[in-house]
């Protein structure tokens, strides 16, 4: 194939890879956005908890030689537990009228979780199980990574389950009620604290799955992952629209795709500059994001 065709194919392939990888950003973005939607608070420890959960699931892999799918589920469970702990430590007892206090508490928790992981592993990268990591689906002239496709499918399934819970179950109704009209929800007998706690557990589980997917896509877990995922999660949340789940999904895929395009055309050193510029463009011209509304809470 001539260089000309490679120059055409490569950017398309980059976008394809980026969009598939973007499903992980979407999962992280959903976590941020759901917590923001329900509590109107940002949990900056969310991505760190996700990576923490993935690390915890390594016990199942290393001690029990559990298959990859079981390890992923363990990551979701562990991250759900960490999510609950984050809620108790950083949100439950801090008065609602002190949003900065919860924000700073979650920053502290981010550093704490990261440092616990570093101390437990001495900062050594740990191998993480993957599924279909040696499979390449050849669609001449393009190809699709088997593991990224699996991650994409698993992420879509997880998002569908979440949407089902939110829109088809009593728990989801309660969550949405607290998000939209906390006072009215409380008058209807919906426990605000319980709903918040459950939101943290559900988003935690989703984050754990995202953490596991990151580990699976690289084949290794490293404490280095927490901070970039936090940044990407926040970007996705803002671009998608604070509180909007469909927005987080679309923005996640968008950021993943753009990231690879910028990298292809401008190089890795400028890549993040353009992603940040994208964020500023949204903050300036469309602060409510793709799907967000300016204000939805009483």
């Amino acid at each position, binding site marked *: 194939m001539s260089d000309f065709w*490679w120059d055409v194919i*490569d950017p398309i*392939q*980059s976008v394809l*890879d*980026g969009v598939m*990888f973007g499903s992980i950003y979407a999962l992280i973005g959903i976590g941020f956005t759901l917590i923001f939607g329900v509590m109107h608070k940002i949990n900056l420890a969310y991505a760190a908890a996700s990576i923490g959960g993935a690390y915890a699931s390594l016990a199942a892999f290393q001690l029990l030689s559990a298959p990859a799918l079981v390890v992923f589920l363990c990551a979701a469970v562990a991250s759900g537990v960490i999510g609950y702990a984050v809620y108790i430590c950083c949100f439950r007892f801090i008065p609602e009228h002190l949003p900065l206090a919860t924000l700073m508490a979650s920053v502290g928790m981010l550093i704490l979780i990261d*440092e616990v992981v*570093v*101390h437990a592993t*001495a*900062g*050594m*990268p*740990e*191998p993480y199980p993957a599924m279909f*990591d*040696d499979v*390449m689906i050849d669609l001449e002239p393009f*190809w699709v*990574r088997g593991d990224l496709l699996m991650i994409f499918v698993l992420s879509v399934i997880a998002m569908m389950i979440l949407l089902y819970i939110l829109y088809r179950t009593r728990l989801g109704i309660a969550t949405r009620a607290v998000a939209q009209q906390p006072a009215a929800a409380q008058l209807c007998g919906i426990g605000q604290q319980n709903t918040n706690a459950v939101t943290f557990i559900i988003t935690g589980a989703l984050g754990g799955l995202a953490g596991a997917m*990151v580990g699976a*896509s*690289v*084949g*290794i877990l*490293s*404490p*280095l*992952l927490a*901070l*970039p995922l936090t940044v990407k999660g926040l970007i996705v949340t803002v671009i998608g629209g604070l509180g909007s789940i469909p927005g987080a999904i679309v923005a996640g895929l968008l950021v993943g795709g753009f*990231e*690879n395009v910028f*990298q*292809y055309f401008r*190089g*890795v*050193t400028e890549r993040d500059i353009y992603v940040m510029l994208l964020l500023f463009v949204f903050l300036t011209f469309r602060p409510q994001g793709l799907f967000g509304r300016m204000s939805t809470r009483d």
Partner: protein
Amino acid sequence: MKRLLTIAAALGVAMSVGTAADAADRTVKIAGFGAMSGVVRSFGINTQAVMQAAAKAINEAGGVKLADGSMAPMEVTFDDDRCNAEEGISVVRRLASGDAVVGVGPTCSNVAEPLFGILQAKAGDEGDSGLQFPIFTDTAIKGGLAKISEWAFRNVPNESQMYKSLFEWLASQHPDAKSVYGGVEEDFAHSRFTWYKVMKTRSADVGYEVKGESKWLLNDTNFTTQVREMKRAGADIIAISAHPFTTCGVLKEMARQRVKYKVLVGLTSSSSLETLNGCAKQAEGIIIPTSFAPVNPEAVAAADAAAALGGSADLHSAAAWEIMMILKDVIEAAGIQATADSVQADRMAIRDGLANLKTTKGLLGEIQRTDEGEAVKPYVYVHADDGSWAVLHDPNA
């Protein structure tokens, strides 16, 4: 007269007991510092374990001989600089105001560079108020840093020489290989320096065509675009200048995209347990020059002693073992007193001793010392072989 003799004898005993007690009270304090938190924590853990193991070996052999002929034990402390320049400077300022006679560290080149800048540039220059505290570096490997100050010394391998020799050897072993393509972790001082200033230039010097390089960042997780560039270049030799986490990510992506090459070369820092821990299968065959491998009884003993204290001897941490042994010899030759009043004089004596060294003993053989405080260390080429590092070639043999 008898009474006088008794008093004199008693005084003599008291004085000798006093001298013994003084010697027992005196310790030679060596202050280690490096990354004990953050993602490079394993480097600090290894250096600390190796320094403690070396001090234990020295103390079990009687300790260090002081100026008055008495023996004093070596005491090792270790502080965390978090691989952060400000933290490192703060740690060393604190150490310099204490009673440690020499500092051993840091882990990261981004700490070493500004840190050496706060030391007195020229020893004895009264117009320079920089710190007068000798620092002997085991890990921070970026080229040419010790020349910043006459109080800075390093025992790190000379990568420029190692890779020059490696590429020359590869040219003789793989005459069919004609081109090189690089992979570089762009935001880490060591890996960036090693690709652009060492691997790239040295391979070109040997006559290889350098076809370019793919770049990524230390905490990147997606390498598909970079590996596609690599595949498209179709070079015979792929040289990856990155640390274990991204090296493994790239190697896995190379396996997925079925990148073909004749030789795979890695960064010195990747000849560690971390790489094998993360991607032994994909790293199989990667060739790395290293200044440490347990290839002789002394090196094996050092590695075992470090392992007993929870560390791992690799090219970085094993340098700390050599540093401890060098310091013992320098201290004994310089004749320090190791008292509270002699701290600054002891530091100056150690600095002068280190500056005057021309050769020292290392775990793999004799180490040459340059006038700029750097080391020229013997090295071997190792390769990942069946999940462990094995010596592929010893250029000194």
